[in-house]
């Protein structure tokens, strides 16, 4: 590995570095748990790395509590999320997803922005954030911001809607409106640690006082080129009483989730297996 590095510690330095490198090959580095592997196996000659790991700007590094949203800076690590009492309380799905990322050492470095921008269909934190209807705040080199739902920000395997002059600044999660929650992250793999999901399911149901679903968010991971938001499954659940779900309801919910799965067969699992597992875990979350 041999490349130039531009170290940026403030937003202005970052924007200038991006602007100055529009005609060259550059990458942005944050937690490096994926990027180092890429750089090791790709030619890096003539490449510039814009290092944002030492950013001091709070909007990039902190978890901010606003009235309607919780805002995660792009450099918030998986460990920051795991250790946040606020996230554990309000968004258990995200807490569980962050805790299921790789290992302690990786979680201490890996950032939420990197997990999203790497655009892997099996990304755990991104999956939870899709289910939470999170919205990305994207910054361009002129300092202008745009907002895009995470579900459409990831456009394919390894691809996002980011332009070359843009960077992901933060992710906003709408706060809960319901009184109670049923929220969690199911991850299926061949072992518990260091695992890349074969199938994952993120769900976040907000309930009213009587236990009826008032808002639903469901996404499935590693079964499509993106992380689909299972809208029809969510629509199906709104208004339902979670304690009074029949076996047919559970099946219908799982069938709705399955509509969004177009998996491939690869080294980790076959298409058939992924569909079976997705159906089964979708049904089982209510048992």
């Amino acid at each position: 590995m041999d490349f130039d590095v531009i170290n940026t510690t403030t937003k202005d330095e970052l924007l200038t570095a991006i602007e100055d490198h529009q005609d060259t090959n550059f990458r942005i580095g944050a937690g490096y748990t994926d990027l180092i592997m890429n750089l090791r196996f790709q030619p890096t000659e003539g490449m510039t790395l814009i290092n944002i790991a030492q950013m001091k700007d709070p909007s990039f590094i902190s978890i901010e509590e606003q009235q309607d949203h919780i805002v995660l800076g792009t450099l918030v690590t998986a460990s920051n999320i795991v250790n946040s009492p606020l996230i554990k309380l309000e968004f258990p799905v995200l807490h569980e997803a962050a805790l299921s990322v790789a290992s302690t050492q990786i979680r201490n470095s890996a950032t939420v922005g990197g997990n999203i921008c790497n655009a892997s269909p099996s990304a755990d934190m991104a999956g939870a954030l899709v289910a939470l209807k999170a919205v990305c705040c994207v910054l361009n080199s002129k300092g202008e911001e745009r907002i895009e739902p995470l579900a459409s920000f990831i456009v394919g395997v390894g691809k996002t809607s980011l332009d070359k002059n843009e960077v992901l600044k933060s992710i906003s999660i709408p706060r809960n409106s319901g009184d109670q929650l049923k929220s969690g992250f199911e991850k299926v793999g061949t072992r518990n640690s260091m695992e890349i999901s074969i199938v994952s399911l993120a769900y976040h149901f907000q309930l009213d006082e009587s236990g009826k679903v008032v808002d639903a968010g469901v996404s499935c991971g590693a079964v499509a080129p993106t992380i689909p938001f299972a809208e029809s499954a969510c629509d199906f659940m709104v208004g339902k009483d979670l304690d009074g779900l029949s076996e047919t309801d559970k099946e219908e919910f799982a069938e709705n989730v399955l509509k969004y799965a177009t998996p491939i067969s690869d080294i980790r699992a076959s298409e058939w297996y992924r569909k079976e597992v997705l159906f089964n875990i979708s049904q089982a979350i209510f048992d």
Partner: protein
Amino acid sequence: MKIVFKINGKQVSMEVKPSLLLIDLIRDVLKLKGTKPGCLEGECGACSVIVDGEAINSCMYLAINVNGKEVSTIEGLTGTENPLHKVQDKMLEHGAVQCGFCTSGIVMTTKAYSDKCLEEGITPTREEVKKSLEGNLCRCTGYAKIIDAAEAVYKK
């Protein structure tokens, strides 16, 4: 690129190649060979060191990013007065070391986790101890003795 940081309590300032990895800085520049290069892809944890209180894989960390931070390696855990750290003592006591290649990584990970538990006043369960070691592979011991040793660190 110039970096200033603390290694095992000692302030250093040096010029490093921007693409240098932390593991190479530790082993090849600082000549601290206790940190082991295993898989070099973040799977095995043999290269674990502590940066600002958190265990990280030094094989996936740019050396320039320790600027302004405090790095501890296995060499910095003890001095002549206390030749072994509590974690090391417990590992010996429980026979948790065989070939030893993974040991420094396991000691550093356990040290970081035990400091955190101590700070928060928590005694972790066996499951939590296992979870804390999920980023460290050992091909000799079968883990039971390592987990026993780590668990003993938390017992009063």
